[in-house]
Structures are given as structure tokens and as C-alpha cells.
């Protein structure tokens, strides 16, 4: 018979961002073959399943015994050790063996043994003791455990907490002791102010917040879903005079500090409202609304105060103060970093505006506003530079120089911003690599992968004319090449062998890599391409085996066979397309169209002719094909249907 299973790990409030990871682990917990489904709120991790066997079936186990040649004594000793009579042994080949009956076990007993270990084995980013040194570790204290198989408790204990059938409701909305069954668990929770399913809480937040005019934000919705057991949205107001402050500042205060949604006003500005999500069912007296408004007002007041104080000292007068701001312990201050970035911008050919922006871009780190709202670094610098009369190319470059913050984020919108952002990130990478701070595995405390990804994205999307080899060398070049591959594969969706093929033919500027990849991806599906790529591998092999390194002088008329002359003409045609148009797609299309000639050549012509002069001419023909056809992409890297992926 199979039974329903329920496990609820009752805890104190778990950090919202860790919950999905824990659930993914719990979804793999061994329930004697049944498939678990998982749910969570901040105070409970829940595993449920149907069809968990009440008892595992009886089975037989064959235990191999001593060789028959070892004699009766050995056989008796073996049987005794196994708790059986020697008469129960049977012969299998030259050995004795014993068939042992293994009785099935109650599922409840098996789970009582396995669940405590499975719970404590959940991996968390940071764990704690809550009883004493040497006690169990978990993300937050475990305060109750519900463990049921059918209508019976699965008995076990963790840190003095015994499993049972009693759960707890919402801290304010529910009872603190609620007996449950596998059947009524979710509905009992609901009666006690807990919405168990995250998707249901998420939907409630989205629906209610949107109805109040909130500008929804996926990350914030997710956070609120996992810091509430019963989310309810309310709308609050603030004094419209605060709208004089930059929208960036207001939004940051609301979203990042207070976890409120902002509300859009007309036209493309903010409305003097916010939407907060409570962890309770209502606010009949308006106390929660009033409290949140009061907090927001104080926060906005701070922001206004910071704005006013910060204007008393212009960014340009703060460069020296950067000596007091650490960039990294081994790498000194932001003053030194600024000097390096300015020099690099100049070296990269940045104009006066770009150099000015580089000089000022880190100065906002000394402002009260950024000390309070660190997420706004760069943005605040840009806003201040604007307010202090710096020209638009300068303030905009400062504003955008941390971009792109992710692969989805856009690159800076102006050439000045692009070059400052590039120089800033490049300097971080070079500096960190120079002192051995190189990311390994999941360890990347300085977010160097993100910086490198930003460099790649800027170089490609701004079509900047720097060769990667000029910008980075050694270990850092290797590191960057990984990011280049990642970018073109994962972000841009090119096939891995196309990326390998293009990079194998040389990596000049990344914009050029992109152009070649785009052309390659377009021409690849055409009928001649992959067969040509297959032939190309053959050409490579022949050249490698022959050891031919080029240099034979040869003209069309030198060839004896029509197939040779035809291929020679085709080669000339491709070279002409390359010289005349230089357009990758046209060159690749022309190259692909040589396929019938290549096929005919290999059909009719024996390259390794006994006549050494004939052989040398044919090798030269292949040599030139290899050279001219490889400038855009190395076709031998293309995986064709005849290949096995390695």
C-alpha cells in the first residue's frame, strides 16, 4: 500500500534569496521512489509526496561464500558468521553461496532514519549554530517539525525538536499550535493566515500591486514572495515636493531600501505614491500606511539633505579626497585608480570629454548620497556633474560608466561613456590580475567576470576598433577569451563550433569577430557549406601529412586535368570576391559555391601523384585554398554530420 507523505521544517525566518536553492535540494530527497513536490514560506520548508510505500517488499540477497575447495570447516564458519546453518549453503560454480531473505521494512522506519540527515545536509550559503558549539547547523533555528506518512508521525528529532503533526500559523494571523493531516495541511495553513504556494503569493502580489498602479519589478516581486506568508499590497503617498529630487534617487530609496514599488506618473515621471507589500491581511486603521509614509519621508529628507550638502563641494574638488577611499587593500586608493583610468582613456584615444569624465567618475564615492545609497554610484556622479555645469558628454559618461551591469543591461550610450566604462573595467581586471586576484571556480569576490563580460559587450556592441591582444595579455587574455566565447555562445546564441571556427582564424577586433560570425551563421545552412567543411578537413589532413609548406609557382595552364583547372579558377574567383567586396557574407557564399569543384577535384584527381612536380602543383592548389578559405573562419572547426563531437 502506498501513502501520502508530508514533511514541514519549521524555522525562524529564512533569508528570501536562499529559499529557492534549498527547495531545489529538497526536491531530490529520497522518498522510497515517490516524487517529492516542494513549497516554502520564510518560516517553513515543505516536502510532500503521494505514493510512498508503507513497506518495502521482501527481497533476497546472495552472499558469496568460500571456495568449495576450502573444505567443510570454512563453509561452516561462513554459514555461522551469516547466522545460517551450513545446510542452507548452495554451490555456485566453485564457490558456496548463501541466499539470505531480507525482510522489507516500514517506510516510516526508513524515513525516520534518513530524514534528519537529509534535512541537515541541505547546503546553505551561510549557516549557524543555535543551541551550542558542536550542535547542528542550519540556516536559522529549526523550531518545529511535522513529519507524516499516512496518518502516522515519522518519529525523529533534530536539536531537541521532535517531529509531530503540529504546525504553526502566521505569526499574527494564525494559531501557534495547529494539528494537521497530510490531507488538510495546506487548507489548515490557509485558515491560519499562511499561503503555502509561492506562485500563489507571487500572483497575489502582482495582481494587487498592479491594481494600485505599481510599476512591477520581477526581482522585487520575488523578494516579497519569500519574505511574506500572507502578502497584501497597500498604497501610500508622499509629498509631491520630493519629486524635485532625481527619479533615480527616489526609486532607489523606494525599491532597494524600503522594498516598495514606485508608481508611474505623467509624463514618464514618478507619481507621489508607492506600493508596499505587508506580511499581513489588511490595514483597516491605516496604521501600516501611515508608518511606511513616515519612514519614507525621513528617507527622502535624508536624500534631500545629502543632495544639498554634496553640492557645497563640486566633484572636481573631490579628486584629492579619493585618497581616503580604498579601491582594494593591495591596490591602493581610488585616487590611484582614477589616475590609471585617465591615462588609459588617453592611451585608448579618448577625447577631452572622456578624459574629464574619467577624472571625475569616481568622485561621487566621497559624497554623502553615495555613502548612503551605494547602488547609485555613477548615477549620482552623473547627476551632480550635470547640476554642476559639466557638458553633456562628460556627465552622461560618468552617469553610465558602470554599465553594463549585466548581460541584459545596455552599454553606455555615448562614445565617451563607452571608452570610460571600458577603461575602468579594463583597469580593474589588469590591476587584480597583476596582484594575483584571479577568479577561480565560484570564487570571484571582485566580480571580475562581470567586468570582463562588460568589456566584451562594449567592444562588440560599440564596434570599437581595439584588438583584444592589444588590451590584454597572458592569463588575462585567456580569461577574456573565455568571456568572449561565453558572450557569443550564451548571450548571442551562436553555435559553439562556429565560435571556435571564427576565433581559430584569428581574433582581431571583437566587432570583426561578430561580423564574421554573423556571416558564417547565415551561410552555414546553405546546401554546399557543410560538405565543403568536411572536404576542408581532408585538405588539412593531406597538407599535414605531406608536410608541404607552400611556395610552388603555379598558373592555371600548368594543370593537366580540367578538374584541377576548374578548382584553380574557382579559387581565383573567391579571391576576387574577397578583394573586390571584402564583405564576409559574399566571400563565404562564394567559398561555399566552390563545393562542386572541390568534390570533382577529389573525384578525378590523385593529389599525391608519383610525378613530384605534378604533386607539388596540386599541393600548392590545396595550400592556397586552405589559406584563402580560412581567413574568415577555420572550417575544420565546424562540426559536420560525419564528425563525432569530442
Amino acid at each position, binding site marked *: 500500500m502506498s501513502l501520502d507523505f508530508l514533511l514541514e521544517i519549521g524555522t525562524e525566518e529564512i533569508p528570501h534569496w536562499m529559499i529557492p536553492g534549498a527547495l531545489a535540494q529538497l526536491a531530490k530527497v529520497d522518498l522510497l521512489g515517490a516524487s517529492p513536490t516542494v513549497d516554502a514560506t520564510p518560516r517553513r520548508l515543505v516536502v510532500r509526496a503521494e505514493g510512498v510505500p508503507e513497506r518495502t517488499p521482501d527481497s533476497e540477497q546472495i552472499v558469496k561464500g568460500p571456495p568449495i575447495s576450502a573444505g567443510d570447516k570454512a563453509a561452516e564458519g561462513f554459514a555461522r558468521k551469516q547466522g545460517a546453518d551450513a545446510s542452507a549453503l548452495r554451490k555456485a560454480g566453485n564457490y558456496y553461496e548463501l541466499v539470505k531473505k531480507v525482510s522489507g521494512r516500514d517506510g516510516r522506519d526508513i524515513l525516520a532514519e534518513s530524514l534528519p540527515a537529509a534535512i541537515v545536509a541541505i547546503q546553505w550559503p551561510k549557516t549557524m549554530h543555535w543551541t551550542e558549539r558542536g550542535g547542528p547547523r542550519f540556516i536559522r533555528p529549526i523550531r518545529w517539525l511535522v513529519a507524516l506518512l499516512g496518518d502516522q508521525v515519522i518519529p525523529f528529532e533534530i536539536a531537541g525538536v521532535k517531529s509531530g503533526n503540529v504546525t504553526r500559523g502566521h505569526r499574527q494571523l494564525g494559531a501557534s499550535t495547529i494539528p494537521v493531516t497530510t490531507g488538510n495541511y495546506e487548507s489548515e495553513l490557509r485558515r491560519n493566515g499562511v499561503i503555502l504556494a509561492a506562485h500563489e503569493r507571487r500572483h497575489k502580489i502582482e495582481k494587487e500591486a498592479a491594481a494600485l498602479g505599481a510599476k512591477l519589478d520581477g526581482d522585487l516581486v520575488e523578494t516579497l514572495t519569500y519574505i511574506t506568508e500572507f502578502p497584501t499590497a497597500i498604497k501610500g503617498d508622499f509629498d509631491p515636493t520630493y519629486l524635485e529630487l532625481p527619479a533615480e534617487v527616489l526609486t532607489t530609496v523606494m525599491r532597494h531600501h524600503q522594498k516598495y514599488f514606485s508608481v508611474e506618473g505623467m509624463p514618464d515621471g514618478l507619481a507621489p505614491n508607492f506600493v*508596499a507589500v505587508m506580511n499581513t491581511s489588511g490595514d483597516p486603521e491605516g*496604521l501600516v500606511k501611515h508608518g511606511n509614509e513616515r*519612514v519614507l519621508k525621513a528617507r527622502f529628507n535624508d536624500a534631500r*539633505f545629502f543632495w544639498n550638502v554634496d553640492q557645497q563641494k563640486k566633484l572636481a574638488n573631490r579628486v584629492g579626497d579619493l585618497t581616503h577611499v580604498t579601491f582594494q587593500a593591495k591596490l591602493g586608493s581610488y585616487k590611484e585608480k582614477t589616475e590609471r583610468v585617465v591615462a588609459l582613456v588617453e592611451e585608448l584615444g579618448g577625447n577631452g570629454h572622456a578624459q574629464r569624465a574619467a577624472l571625475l567618475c569616481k568622485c561621487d564615492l566621497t559624497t554623502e548620497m553615495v555613502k548612503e545609497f551605494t547602488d547609485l554610484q555613477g548615477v549620482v556622479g552623473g547627476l551632480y556633474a550635470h547640476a554642476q555645469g559639466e557638458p553633456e558628454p562628460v556627465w552622461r559618461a560618468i552617469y553610465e560608466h558602470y554599465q553594463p551591469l549585466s548581460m541584459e543591461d545596455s552599454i553606455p550610450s555615448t562614445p565617451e561613456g563607452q571608452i570610460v566604462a571600458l577603461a575602468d573595467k579594463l583597469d580593474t581586471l589588469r590591476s587584480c590580475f597583476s596582484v594575483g586576484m584571479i577568479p577561480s571556480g565560484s570564487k570571484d569576490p571582485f566580480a571580475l567576470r562581470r567586468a570582463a563580460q562588460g568589456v566584451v559587450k562594449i567592444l562588440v556592441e560599440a564596434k570599437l576598433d581595439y584588438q583584444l591582444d592589444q588590451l590584454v595579455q597572458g592569463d588575462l587574455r585567456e580569461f577574456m577569451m573565455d568571456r568572449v566565447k561565453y558572450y557569443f555562445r550564451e548571450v548571442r546564441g551562436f553555435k559553439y563550433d562556429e565560435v571556435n571556427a571564427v576565433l581559430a582564424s584569428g581574433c582581431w577586433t571583437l566587432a570583426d569577430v561578430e561580423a564574421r560570425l554573423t556571416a558564417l551563421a547565415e551561410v552555414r545552412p546553405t546546401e554546399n557549406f557543410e560538405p565543403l567543411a568536411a572536404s576542408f578537413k581532408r585538405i588539412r589532413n593531406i597538407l599535414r601529412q605531406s608536410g608541404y609548406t607552400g611556395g610552388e609557382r603555379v598558373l592555371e595552364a600548368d594543370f593537366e586535368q580540367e578538374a584541377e583547372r576548374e578548382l584553380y579558377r574557382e579559387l581565383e574567383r573567391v579571391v576576387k570576391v574577397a578583394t573586390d567586396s571584402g564583405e564576409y557574407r559574399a566571400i563565404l557564399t562564394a567559398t561555399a559555391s566552390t563545393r562542386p569543384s572541390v568534390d570533382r577535384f577529389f573525384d578525378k584527381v590523385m593529389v599525391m601523384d608519383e610525378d613530384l612536380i605534378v604533386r607539388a602543383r596540386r599541393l600548392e592548389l590545396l595550400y592556397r585554398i586552405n589559406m584563402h578559405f580560412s581567413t574568415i573562419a577555420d572550417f575544420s572547426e565546424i562540426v559536420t554530420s560525419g564528425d563525432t563531437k569530442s
Partner: protein
Amino acid sequence: MDTFQDTVFKLKRYWADRGAIIQEPYDVEVGAGTMCPETFLRVLGPKPYRVAYVQPSRRPADGRYGENPNRLYKHQQLQVILKPSPNDVLDQYLGSLKAIGIDLSKHDIKFEEDNWEAPTLGAWGIGWQVMLDGLEITQFTYFQQCGGIDLDLVPAEITYGLERISAFLQGVDSVYDMEWAPGVRYSEVRLADELQFSVYNFEAANVDRLWRLLSEHEAECKELLTGYDKYPDKHRYPVLAAYEQVLKCSHLFNLLDARGAISVTERVGIIKRVRDLAVGTAKIWAAQQSEGALA
């Protein structure tokens, strides 16, 4: 409506009823109630302890000349240590909010992750900031390590921001407008303090002399940390006096920082100097406890 002092009385009464000793503020400058020996030293070792006290906490860099309605150079914390932490510690905490007049059924309470770490003390813990209608009213921490020592029993530390809570209860926008006692506003008691110490901390403090004081207190502390091993009567050894020197150094560091006198390179070094003193003191205190000291 409760005055500031009413709220303090009620919280002290609440925790006294739950077995806490009610201590008075420590009489050396500290940046937080955590730094008082009643917390920093008492959490070490295997002996259970419960204590609550108000601690005026000085953060020189936070001074705003009395002009900012919410930021103070010196604010009052109500610090509670429950060692070991009882199983229902969060319920007890929520009970304390009810005790000061917060009807939880009408408010929104959230526990948001906030792990505490004090590099100068070699201390860290796991916990939350407690949000009441979007206002952070309490820091709740399960201490894991203090003075570089793993804790035998895990204490719960509850730190109430008294000004914030009281201003919330009184419904005023500026802490200075709160009633401290009937008819007496917070500003009458503390505004001069805020203004004058902002002037001192940011403008008047003599940087050279502060550096010398830092060295002197550090030297005094180091001297006190070297003699323990050979000292015959362990329980007489003045490690508590050594700890006061640590606190002096920590406060001087904060003052120098507020004066903008600490460079990047110096900062890391000084934090380490203070940390070494704190860790050294904690070690001796723990050793003294296991030797059967009077405390």
C-alpha cells in the same frame, strides 16, 4: 501616550520579568551596546547569563549638529542578552513589543536578513533587522563568535533603537520632538550634546593628541595583556581594565575617522591593532573564567 522614559521602563520591566539582570550603562564610551563587557565578555564561556541595559552609543561620524531629525551622534540602545537563547526567543521579543503598546494585529512585522559583523572585535553573528511598518526597530543577532572565540552557548542579542521606537510610538517626525519625560522634550535633554559634540568631533578635536592618546591606551592595554600567564592569583588579574583600554582605542579610532584623519593604508592597520587587543582580552577573560574566577 508613553514618554521616552516610559518606554524604557516598560522594556526593562519586561526583561527583568524574564530573568534578566537590569544593568546600568557602561561608563566608558562605546559605539554600541555590544561592546560593553556585559555583552562582549559575558557571551564567552559556558555560563548562562541574562542581562538588559540601556547603552548610550557614540558614533562620532553620524553627528549632524542636531539638524537631522533622525541621525544622532549619540543614540540610546536597549541591549538584551539571553544566553543561551530560549527556544521561544522571537515570541518573547514580539511580546516585548506588545508590552510597549504595539498592537501587532494592526501592524506589519518582517524579519529581514541582516548578519552582524564587527571586524574590530573579531565578532560576528547571524540574524535580522526587524521591520515594523517599514521602520527598522531592532537588530536581532544570534552570536556565533566573539573576540575570535567560537561561543559555547549561542546567545541571542536584541538591540532596540530606542529613539526610533519612541518616535514611532509618539508619532513624531523628529526625535527632538519626542517627549522624554512629561513636558520635557528630547531636544531639551540632548540637543546641546549633539551640536557641541558634532563641532568637537568634526572640527575641534586635536588630531595629533588623539593619535598620541590612541598609542597610550594601546600601550596600557598591551602591557595588561602580557602578564597573565605568569600571574599567580589568576582571579585578581585586571583583564577587565585591559578591556576598557580596548574601548578607549576603539572610540579614539572613531573620532580620528570622523576627523578624516585616517588614510586608506592606515585604516586596515588600525582596525587590526584594535582587533588584536580585543581578541587578546577575550582570550584572557575566557581563560580566567575557566580558572574559576569570581565572576
